[in-house]
């Protein structure tokens, strides 16, 4: 956002500096290299001036104002290091330490504690306090994940302000007064926020500790790598830390365009799934009806043999590949090249029947997350962001609450952001298109002269309704001028997988088969000509016996595909099943060859988030056993099918992607290494957003910052360490470019390959009318909940307990109509099947709709949905 404030001159400790008028003194000082100690002030929260640690002297002002609540004015002269300030700091620290227990050796914060650091740097050095300190019961759980030690709390209110201001879950607050003041939860209302882990990270002492990390390591035996979270497609930046080759925590890193330093609890604690007991360690092949462990060459030979047999007997269209949205971009590219360039099939889909068609994902004008802040309005037509993309929920909430951007909510049922909406259009599940027609009229009063784009968060709101109505709605919304779309797909790298050709009808780099044919035949030797099947089509074909070899890449299809009967029929009907996964899932147990893959944290590469932002993921630990990264498995299979990719490292693959895939032009390994906040595709439109300088980290007093400066820091000297950029300045770039052009083939921008036009969705869509609902039926809306039976949560001990109980929520009037009590079990039947479920009344659910989260419990939505139908209508019967 452009800062248009007047620039004023301030003098801090004798150094003149320029700053926008009205900026906080503490921030101006920090940006110019003067560190003012603080506990309560946090860059992303409103100042409160509670801890009094940042007191400074301002000439002409009586007393000592706190730097965190004072704004700068022209000609201000500030002293942060005078004797008076020093005395005030000594006093504040002495008071803070009166009741602080000093159990640092036991405390998780010890070693990276702002209170320790600032006591050492600014404190009196000796304590005069000899009396007994305050005592409380140690530690009390305030949620399933967070423990509170009230003795250590210094009442800075960072946690309570985070919960209230940032997360919007005001579930913790201060109780009592004076020395008894403490953080409390409301009676019978635990701190069940999806963002509770952030309070642990912002706590400046060890008062809040996270259960999974508690006593697992000390700060000095951790090593860290900056990475992007791949739990969902927001791609939050974080610092992944390990001790003794074991991941122990993920801390949020403040990245302006993406996550502002916040993480959701699923992303923060999901690393535990990496160390799940049931991780597959060795490849397996089927012998005498059961899977037995074998060597890699044996398994790869068997897999290649299976593919070859189907290829020889029935041609390339008999081979299909499902999945690939959990890996890195490099994995996705080589899977796409294996399927489309080597095998020659287009039956490839990274989405598991619960997303949107690739045309919509790739063809709509894209928005970025920062666009939300400057938007004229935000239209929500998609999943419950709080459940599926939690940190995007925080960004939308911030845009609305802090920046005043109006929200138009188009949804079937209430969701996490409904209470912030300025206007709401309610529709029955499946009738998104008719709701979309009302949007223009509803939008006009909201915009009310506001400038900026209209950002549409578009996605599948539930898996019980097909993608069709959402596609129709997108076609209608696209006609509204100045709209940009954030396509809210859920899985970690689904956007990267689609960008790199793991979708029917597309080749890597956002080009269709037709547009890219010439280019990819030149680059790969061959490319498929006919558009293939999507996931549902693949399973249909497989159940009819038309798929000779089915390759499942990192997908838990039985749990994730909306229609379980079709999946089981598909896997059963496929001639030969190869499964590449980290654990033996239900579908993998039926596979003919199982190849164990490394997961997030065990491999390096890049990932693409829902904006199309590519950022690097880091490798922190070595995998236990013999799993291989996906891209190597794909290379090995290709080698056995007669094509040598000749790509050994992640960087080589990145360079090949930049050379071959049109949308990735110029995005090579070097740029990816330099771009601090990632690269948004296509680069031509987002070049000015590139940040090529490294993150600025003040050397002292930031030991609690997740990204640590290299080399020793020094106390007293406050300066910023700026690491030299990896590349030289522009002049030498040009020299390098000249040198490169002298080479026979210019690999930097794909010159020498035929051009291919990037795909743009024509949005010509004839909407099919949604079938009507009869008065005795309820229409099912099956969104997801953050904690579900997916692999991440199911393998994470800390999160497993948080999976909600399965229940069908309906309007209370429906309960009385059926004639049962609230909470009683009823038989629920659809065209597909029937289940016995407990029924709960919820006044927020509109009449005629039934809400049930997907993928919870042993049986559930997957047994009720028929993917060939647009909507899922269900009937309730009493069991009596």
């Amino acid at each position, binding site marked *: 956002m452009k800062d248009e404030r007047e620039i004023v001159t301030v003098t801090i400790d004798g150094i003149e500096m320029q700053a926008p008028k009205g900026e906080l003194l503490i921030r101006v000082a920090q940006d110019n290299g003067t560190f003012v100690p603080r506990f309560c002030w946090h860059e992303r929260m409103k100042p409160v001036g509670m801890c009094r640690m940042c007191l400074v002297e301002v000439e002409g002002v009586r007393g000592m104002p706190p730097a965190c609540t004072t704004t700068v004015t022209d000609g201000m002269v500030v002293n942060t290091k005078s004797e008076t300030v020093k005395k005030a700091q000594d006093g504040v620290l002495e008071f803070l330490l009166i009741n602080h227990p000093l159990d640092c050796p036991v405390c998780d914060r010890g070693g990276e504690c702002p209170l320790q650091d600032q006591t050492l740097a600014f404190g009196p050095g000796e304590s005069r306090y000899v009396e007994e300190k305050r005592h409380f019961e140690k530690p009390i759980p305030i949620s399933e994940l967070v423990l509170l030690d009230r003795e250590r709390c210094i009442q800075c209110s960072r946690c309570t302000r985070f919960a209230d201001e940032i997360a919007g879950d005001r579930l913790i607050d201060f109780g009592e007064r004076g020395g008894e003041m403490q953080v409390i939860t409301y009676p019978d209302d635990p701190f069940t926020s999806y963002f509770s882990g952030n309070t642990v990270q912002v706590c400046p002492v060890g008062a809040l500790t996270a259960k999974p990390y508690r006593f697992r390591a*000390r700060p000095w035996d951790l090593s860290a790598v900056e990475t992007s979270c791949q739990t969902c497609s927001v791609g939050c930046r974080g610092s992944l830390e390990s001790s003794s080759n074991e991941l122990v925590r993920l801390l949020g890193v403040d990245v302006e365009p993406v996550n502002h330093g916040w993480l959701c609890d699923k992303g923060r604690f999901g690393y535990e799934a990496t160390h799940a007991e049931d991780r597959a360690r060795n490849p397996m092949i089927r012998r005498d009806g059961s899977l037995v462990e074998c060597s890699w060459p044996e398994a790869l030979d068997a897999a290649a043999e299976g593919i070859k047999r189907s290829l020889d007997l029935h041609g390339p269209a008999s081979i299909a590949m499902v999945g690939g949205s959990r890996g890195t971009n490099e994995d996705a590219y080589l899977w796409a090249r294996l399927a489309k360039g080597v095998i020659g099939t287009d039956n490839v889909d990274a989405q598991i029947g619960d997303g949107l068609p690739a045309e919509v994902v790739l063809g709509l004008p894209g928005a970025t997350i920062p666009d939300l802040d400057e938007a004229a309005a935000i239209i929500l037509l998609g999943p419950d962001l709080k459940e599926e993309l939690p940190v995007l929920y925080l960004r939308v909430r911030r845009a609305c609450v802090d920046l005043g951007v109006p929200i138009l909510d188009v949804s079937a049922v209430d969701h996490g952001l409904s209470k912030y909406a300025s206007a709401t259009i309610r529709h029955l599940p499946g009738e998104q298109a008719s709701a979309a027609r009302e949007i223009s009229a509803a939008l006009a009063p909201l915009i009310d002269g506001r400038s900026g784009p209209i950002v549409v968060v578009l996605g599948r709101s539930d898996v019980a309704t097909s993608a069709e109505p959402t596609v129709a709605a997108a076609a209608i919304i696209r006609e509204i001028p100045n709209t940009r779309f954030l396509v809210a797909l859920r899985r970690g790298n689904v956007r990267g997988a689609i960008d790199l050709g793991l979708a029917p009808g597309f080749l890597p780099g956002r080009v269709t088969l037709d547009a890219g044919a010439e280019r990819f035949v030149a680059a790969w030797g061959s490319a498929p000509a006919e558009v293939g099947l999507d996931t549902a089509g693949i399973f249909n074909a497989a159940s009819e016996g038309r798929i000779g070899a089915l390759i499942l890449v990192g997908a838990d299809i039985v749990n994730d595909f909306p229609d379980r009967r079709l999946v089981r029929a598909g896997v059963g009907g496929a001639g030969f099943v190869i499964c590449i996964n980290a654990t033996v899932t239900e579908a993998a147990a039926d596979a003919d060859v199982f190849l164990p893959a490394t997961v997030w944290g065990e491999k390096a590469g890049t990932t693409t988030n829902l904006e199309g932002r590519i950022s690097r993921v880091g490798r922190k630990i070595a995998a236990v056993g013999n799993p291989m990264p996906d891209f190597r498995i794909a290379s090995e299979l290709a080698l056995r099918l007669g094509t040598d990719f000749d790509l050994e490292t992640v960087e080589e693959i990145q360079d090949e992607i930049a050379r071959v895939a049109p949308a990735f032009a110029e995005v090579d390994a070097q740029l990816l290494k330099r771009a601090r906040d990632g690269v948004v595709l296509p680069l031509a439109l987002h070049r000015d957003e590139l940040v090529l300088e490294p993150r600025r980290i003040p050397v002292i007093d930031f030991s609690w910052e997740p990204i640590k400066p290299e080399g020793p820091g020094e106390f007293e000297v406050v300066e910023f360490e700026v690491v030299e950029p990896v590349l030289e300045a522009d002049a030498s770039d040009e020299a390098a470019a000249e040198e490169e052009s002298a080479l026979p083939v210019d690999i930097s921008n794909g010159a020498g390959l035929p051009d291919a036009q990037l795909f743009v969705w024509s949005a010509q869509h004839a909407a099919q009318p949604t079938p009507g609902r009869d008065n005795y039926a309820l229409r099912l809306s099956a969104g997801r909940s953050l904690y579900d039976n997916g692999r991440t949560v199911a393998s994470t001990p800390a999160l497993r307990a948080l999976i909600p109980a399965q229940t069908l929520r309906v309007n209370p009037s429906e309960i009385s109509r059926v004639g049962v009590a609230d909470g009683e079990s009823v038989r629920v039947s659809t065209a597909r099947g029937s289940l016995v479920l407990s029924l709960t009344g919820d006044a927020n659910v509109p009449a005629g709709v039934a809400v049930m989260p997907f993928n919870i419990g042993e049986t559930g939505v997957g047994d009720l949905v028929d993917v060939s139908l647009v909507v899922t209508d269900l009937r309730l019967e009493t069991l009596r």
Partner: protein
Amino acid sequence: MARFSGFGVTFKQMFKPRITGFYPKEKREKPERFHGRHVLNRYEDGMEKCIGCELCAGVCPAKCIYVRGADNSPDSPVSPGERFGFVYEINYLRCIHCDMCVEACPTEAITETKLFEFSFANRADAIYTKEELLVDDEGRAKRQPWELWLGGEDDKTSAWMRATSSSGDADYEGRVNWSGELGFGVREPEQGQSL
């Protein structure tokens, strides 16, 4: 003549007192500050002093200490407080007996004996586990099969040297202070030490 003057040295030595020690049958008294192998101490009620804080591992210049902490179960705590060291290992192939772990320990959990004669024949014996390092019920070091004990080696194990003077008492400023509530190995504060 020169060959006889050489015998002169031999004759001279014959009448001097012998300084040969009959090691290992006889052992010399170790200096008070001698650094031998470690012990992990307990309180008198049997609770372990170690809280698993890893400060010893952090300060160790040879990186020979491996510690992991864990939550004390409230019903049967191993140490007082929330945390205890559930893994504690010292690799004596790497330890240089600098005693910095002893100085760093906030609870006097780790101290050094005068034992230095342990000739292990494999790595597993060289890495002392928590079970091997912990003192017995009498507060004395446990004898391991590969250690040469002739008596008295564990007499001065409990003493612990503070890096700073006991706070608040001006008389001890600048003097090294010793403590040891098990009752042995304790000495008077040393004079003339400047910190």
